[in-house]
């Protein structure tokens, strides 16, 4: 099956080509051509990914080595791609959702100037390329290239409308926060190279090579990798960049939140699952951070009024769930939730984009309302997305979230209870969002009301496709207790995680318990949905929040806290270094040397009088001096 290797490199190469063509031709290509190339390359990648997926399903797992990338002494890092069950799933998510977002963008971004339109698609393609590199890399170094690439592209896209100062600040924030995580990742990488002399996954994750690491080293490496993941996947303490990333165009938010970027951390941990399974301490940290993030973000989302901000915090919260699953050792559940989350979060973001488009750029829910009358398709698809994310039985979110909660219950009932609380909060804020936006009466201006319309097909078709996926996507992972052997995803991923399962402590939960857990959570979620719906459909939450609500609206003042604790001291240190050390000391020394030389020159200039006599006099004096030295001082 050599041809697999000959073809898979086209999967990332095509988006890169698209990026180059669109980037270079942004001034000469028409918008239609740019959109066609930009979406077409992703579609081609998607078809190739599908093909690769079926190859993998047929049992052809490959590692393709193309050329030596770094060869230094004993360290050999090849440029290699690994196509196995895990990367195949990610390939499908990235290119599939990515393609829909590209199609959507051709319509959503149509008002941009042609060169900005081309720039936008070039960035978008580059983003997909980086993410593909990240998941296809067969060693940590290639993964790191993609890792940095998505960081860069998120910076470029969040700051796409760079003329607005706050947007470019949000881009900087995303980039800098990611850098913090990247540093930890890099240190972990160096430790691996130092201890094992390789970064290739298939060489690291063998029992022989892992035996070389002591328990402390494994804990240190996994913790550092996890810090890297918190940066990219927006967990406490590095999550604040993600809500600010809403500054970018809405499809970009969808791409960052659903298909790419934020799932990178999950992917990395799932990839290194064997290493993590050997570090129980790290697993506990991950689970705690995950549930803490899920709850914190969910509470913040309760009181946000910007439609995209709610979705952003919901992403942070859902990512927290995925980390909870990873920390509980329920790796399949994490991957499953990544997949279903990609469907419904892309749907919700694109749906909110459709709403914002119709509202002429308005993002405040308090000025919306009653949109279901004007935008039928958006309304229905958005509702389906909300049902999916809330975890109503039968929708995709139910299956994945239920599996996570079951995994958490197996680890500790406390985690389960907190996770359930988070799920209820999710259901509540999502239906607050839905009811405020689509139900009740319209609260915007007359002009806006007159302008309201359903979006064109390029926007609604992706919405419909994603809505279908959000509804049925969960059936690839029907839990064992409902139907025996129906968890296709778990079977598919078996080869990736089987070594970890042997290591992890087994907490068997009986099927009847699982039925009870699923039943309890479903009932509570449905009750919450009904409550939120009835509470906000008629009388939306318009008053300024007070007390705890105000704290939530201001995001627990975490941004302010970071500002006072980190940003301000750093800024004052920076201005101290700039104003005092640089301007006074460094510049003083440099200018002082210059002044000294010119002062000395001015003084010495008087010697160069042009009077021959004085020169001779000096010669004579010099001679006399030498004589004196000779006669009197030498003895």
């Amino acid at each position, binding site marked *: 099956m050599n041809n697999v290797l000959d073809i898979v490199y086209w999967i990332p190469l095509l988006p890169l080509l698209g990026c180059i063509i669109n980037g270079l031709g942004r001034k000469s290509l028409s918008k239609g051509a740019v959109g066609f190339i930009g979406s077409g390359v992703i579609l081609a990648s998607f078809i190739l990914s599908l093909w690769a997926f079926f190859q993998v399903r047929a049992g052809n797992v490959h590692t393709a080595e193309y050329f030596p990338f770094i060869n230094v002494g004993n360290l050999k890092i090849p440029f290699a791609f690994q196509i196995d069950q895990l990367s195949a799933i990610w390939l499908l998510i990235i290119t599939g959702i990515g393609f829909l977002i590209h199609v959507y963008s051709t319509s959503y971004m149509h008002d941009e100037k042609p060169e900005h339109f081309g720039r936008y698609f070039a960035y978008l393609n580059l983003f997909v390329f980086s993410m593909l590199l990240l998941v296809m890399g067969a060693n940590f170094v290639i993964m790191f290239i993609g890792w940095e690439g998505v960081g860069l592209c998120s910076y470029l896209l969040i700051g796409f409308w760079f003329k607005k100062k706050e947007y470019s600040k949000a881009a900087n924030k995303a980039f800098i926060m990611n850098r913090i995580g990247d540093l930890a990742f890099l240190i972990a990488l160096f430790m691996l190279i130092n201890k094992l002399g390789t970064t290739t996954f298939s060489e690291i994750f063998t029992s022989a090579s892992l035996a070389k690491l002591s328990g402390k080293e494994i804990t240190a490496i996994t913790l550092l990798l996890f810090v890297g993941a918190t940066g990219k996947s927006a967990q406490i303490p590095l999550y604040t960049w993600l809500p600010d990333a809403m500054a970018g165009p809405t499809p970009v938010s969808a791409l960052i939140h659903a298909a790419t970027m934020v799932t990178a951390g999950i992917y990395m941990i799932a990839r290194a699952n064997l290493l993590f399974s050997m570090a129980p301490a790290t697993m506990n940290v991950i689970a705690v951070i995950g549930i803490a993030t899920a709850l914190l973000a969910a509470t913040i989302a309760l009181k946000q009024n910007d439609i995209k901000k709610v979705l952003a915090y919901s992403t942070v919260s859902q990512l927290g769930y995925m980390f909870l699953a990873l920390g509980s050792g329920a790796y399949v559940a994490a991957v499953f939730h990544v997949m279903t989350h990609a469907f419904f979060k892309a749907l919700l973001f694109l749906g909110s984009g459709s709403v914002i488009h119709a509202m002429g750029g308005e993002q405040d829910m308090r000025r919306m309302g009653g949109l279901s009358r004007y935008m039928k398709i958006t309304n229905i698809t958005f509702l389906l997305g909300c049902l999916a994310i809330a975890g109503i039985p039968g929708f995709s979110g139910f299956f994945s979230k239920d599996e996570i909660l079951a995994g958490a219950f197996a680890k500790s009932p406390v985690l389960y209870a907190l996770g359930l609380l988070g799920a209820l909060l999710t259901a509540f804020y999502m239906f607050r969002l839905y009811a405020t936006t689509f139900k009740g009466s319209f609260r915007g201006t007359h002009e806006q009301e007159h302008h309201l319309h359903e979006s064109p097909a390029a926007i609604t078709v992706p919405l419909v496709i994603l809505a279908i996926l959000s509804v049925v996507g969960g059936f690839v992972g029907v839990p064992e207790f409902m139907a025996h052997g129906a968890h296709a995803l778990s079977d598919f991923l078996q080869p990736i995680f089987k070594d970890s399962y042997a290591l992890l402590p087994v907490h068997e939960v009986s099927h009847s318990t699982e039925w009870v857990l699923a039943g309890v959570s479903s009932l509570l979620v449905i009750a919450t949905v009904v409550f939120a719906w009835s509470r906000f459909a008629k009388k939306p939450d318009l008053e300024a929040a007070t007390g705890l609500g105000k704290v939530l609206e201001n995001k627990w003042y975490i941004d302010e806290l970071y500002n006072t604790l980190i940003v301000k001291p750093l800024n004052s240190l920076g201005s101290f270094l700039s104003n005092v050390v640089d301007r006074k000391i460094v510049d003083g020394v440099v200018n002082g040397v210059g002044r000294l030389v010119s002062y000395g020159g001015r003084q010495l200039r008087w010697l160069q009088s042009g009077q021959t*006599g004085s020169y001779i006099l000096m010669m004579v004096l010099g001679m006399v001096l030498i004589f004196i030295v000779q006669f009197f001082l030498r003895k």
Partner: protein
Amino acid sequence: MPINYYITLALCLFAIGVVGVLTRRNAIIVFMCVELMLNSVNLLLVAFSKMHHIAKGAAATAGTDGQLFVFFIMVVAAAEVSVGLAIIVMMYRNVHSININFLNRLKH
């Protein structure tokens, strides 16, 4: 005669030459003072040459190698004088003065 006399005489001549060069403004006198210095050096060379050979016990006619330098110096000095006097003549034609401070203007 002891060598000290020669040295003292040469030193005196040299000092007179130096002082003359330093203090006088007349180009010809400066020139003469330069010659004076050269000749004081010549005198010393001859004297030392002679003394050197006497000390080694050679014949009184020997010891001409130091004196050869003197001839070279005289030749060079003669050439220098001819060039220098030519310059002074040209200078006099142009500025009607042989004050060496006039040469200052070359720097402007």
